């Protein structure tokens, strides 16, 4: 394609919307950050942030988009972490093989969790999903000769030869997989996911095979959570029972709700803010958890839909005629030319299924 046309398309798709421009700017900053600052501790915190952002986005894919509220998401993370670790230690396979293998086992686990949960809804589904990591933890302890029991397995191959390479591997994966997940939710499959969440009976009445799509959501979510689990085990060089803990299951829920549910980028943004924040709060170790919790509650008090919808409501407005998004500074819609008037009140804009939330334009 002609470079000038390519740029024009890029400008009309990305640069016209402040939300997308911000995402682009953050990506560029992260890509060039090590040129100016490559302290191992900073790179460690950011690498873990990227890995957990994939995990949070995978939870959003299942629970935010399809409405299958999983409170046991650690099952996918943990099973992939253990699979990658054991394949690396026992079979000597490199992370390039073990991480995808772990993700595939997490896909199978998606079926194992998804099939018995097909008929469950709401809190019953949440409770059922919560049980699976507990069962797997029991198995980890039962087969402690293989899994290392409470100690876990350690001494795994590094994710990359240097901290810098690990940083870039994690960064490229969070950007790539984030984009893939966002495109899935922006596709026809994503539209079906929305339909199931909003009204499953109507979706079935419309001829949609909802059990199949729900299973697909479990498997897709399991795959991405599995990638993050494998990355985690090779980054930490340890896979232990903590990967299956209740805390591991709850963390993506907090990050996603903070960032904004049902958008993928909201889950990623939430993790990008909260995980480094928790590290920063080491300056007051005894008050760390308290300050963290207070900040989350306060932010959600004033941004009830999460951080990213709040931000987008302030920098973009929705065209009343064609529903496309525009920069808040525009007086007419960039697509249909309709007058835009005053920007809508924060949090008042309608949710746009199938368009990746409010940022879609």
């Amino acid at each position: 394609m002609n470079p000038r046309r390519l740029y024009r398309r890029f400008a009309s798709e990305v640069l016209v919307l402040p939300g997308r421009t911000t995402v682009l700017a953050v990506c560029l900053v992260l890509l060039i950050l090590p040129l100016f600052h490559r302290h191992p501790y900073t790179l460690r915190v950011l690498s873990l942030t990227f890995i957990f952002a994939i995990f949070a986005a995978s939870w959003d894919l299942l629970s935010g988009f399809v409405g299958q509220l999983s409170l046991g998401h650690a099952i996918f993370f943990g099973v992939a972490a253990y699979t990658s670790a054991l394949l690396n230690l026992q079979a000597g396979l490199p992370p390039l093989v073990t991480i995808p293998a772990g993700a595939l086992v997490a896909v199978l686990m998606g079926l194992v969790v998804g099939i018995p949960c097909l008929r469950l809804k709401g809190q019953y589904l949440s409770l059922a999903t919560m049980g699976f990591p507990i069962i797997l933890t029991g198995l980890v302890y039962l087969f402690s000769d293989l899994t290392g029991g409470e100690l876990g397995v350690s001494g795994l191959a590094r994710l990359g030869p240097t901290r810098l390479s690990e940083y870039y591997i994690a960064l490229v994966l969070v950007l790539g997989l984030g984009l893939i997940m966002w495109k899935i939710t922006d596709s026809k499959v994503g539209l079906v996911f929305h339909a199931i969440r909003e009204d499953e009976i109507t979706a079935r009445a419309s001829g949609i095979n909802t059990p199949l799509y729900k299973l697909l959501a479990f498997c897709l979510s399991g795959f991405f959570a599995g990638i993050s689990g494998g990355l985690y085990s090779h980054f930490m060089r340890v896979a232990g029972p903590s990967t299956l803990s209740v805390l591991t299951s709850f963390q993506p829920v907090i990050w996603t709700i903070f960032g904004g549910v049902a958008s993928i980028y909201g889950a990623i943004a939430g993790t990008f803010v909260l995980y480094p924040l928790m590290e920063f709060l080491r300056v007051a170790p005894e008050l760390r958890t308290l300050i963290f919790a207070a900040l989350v509650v306060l932010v959600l008090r004033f941004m009830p839909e999460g951080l990213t919808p709040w931000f987008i409501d302030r920098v973009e407005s929705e065209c009343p005629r064609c529903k496309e998004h525009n920069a808040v500074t525009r007086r007419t819609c960039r697509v249909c030319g309709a007058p835009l008037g005053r920007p809508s009140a924060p949090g008042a804009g309608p949710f746009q299924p199938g368009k990746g939330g409010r940022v879609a334009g």
Partner: protein
Amino acid sequence: MTRKRWAALILVVTLLLTTFSVTGCGKAAAPKVIKIAVAGPMQFIQGQHHWLGAQMAAEEINKAGGVTVGNKKYNIELVQVDTNELLSVDDAASAVEKAITVNKVNAIIGTIRSEASMAIQEVAMDNKTIMMVCGASLPQMAEKVGKDYNRYKYWFRVTPVNATYLVKASMLLLNHVGGVFRKELGIQKPKVAAIIEKAVAGDPLAAAAAKLIPTFGMEFVGVWRPSPTATDLTAELTAIRKAGAQIIYTYFSATAGVPYAKQWGELQIPAASVGINVEAQAKGFMQATGNKGNYEYTLNTYAPVQITPKTLPFYEEFTKRAGQFPTYNAGTYDAIYIYKEAIERAKSLDPEAVVPELEKTNYLSAAGKIVFNKNHDVTWGPGYVTALGTQWQDGKLVAVWPNGWEGITYPGTVDYKLPPWVVSQWKKK
């Protein structure tokens, strides 16, 4: 003010500033420091004991003139690292990496949870930083030193003796009680029941108890596995009474140790209780059991007994400051001294020079003589660290073992006492 006066004033100020900057603001130059990270879950008792033990050692060393490395004097500066390891493994590893790369610590001491300790071990070894464990007991960490010496040589364990030896030592306590039964009650083959909490660490212990107890000339009547957090053990204790047990071999690492001891005393189960009950190591044990935990006998690390000349001063000072008895996590006290001696011998802070000196450690600590084995694990046995058997007698924690074992009796050790209701039940009329 005239221009001349202004110029004079500026000159005086400039001179004063120059003088202060050269002399360090009129004070003597501060001594250099050796930074040691004390890593542990600081919101929990384990981390608090890590910190207090290390603090006591650092204060003593600095007061005595600091550390001499070559011809330079250093003070010890502790860096508190809250690992939050009981809740999050990645948090623990990040905290330690921060201490190494941001705070530039020379060594790390502490850690308690095995999984987190393994992750911390990887971070420390990546950075070639000396790590001295005072908490995690599983032997796998030490095995790594043997398997890949060049990578893991910076790792050492000061306390506790590793889990394999903890089992051996607890079996010795059982044998001790068996001997008292034979001698005082004339029962040659006492019946033993095992009550082992249903936790991972308890599984091999349950299997070992069934296999080993008959080899000690005792009869094994069965094993009971309550939850580690059980609040009512009446059913297990009643079944043990019905099985005719005369001794109960215990393993409680968690809270169930309190209701167990309380109900054992309340029900006056006619069987002496011995083994590992971590709750019975705490100062508040008698209060927690409503004074029913008297005669409970457990493996321990510290007690008011003279294992070495350092034990009692350390024990008393720690108890005074903390209001609690020191747990094995307070072994950071000895770890700091061991590190100090090693760097003084090495005349260097370079880990490559310090590791060979740490390997030569032969240090008389508050817990016994510390010598590292080839895997850098603390050596257990006669002449080294033996651990202690402590019993609650009349509301006081006293050391009752070793009492003649391999010729060892630490001054201050008293005789083990059978519970009176056990004696009255089994004494031949």
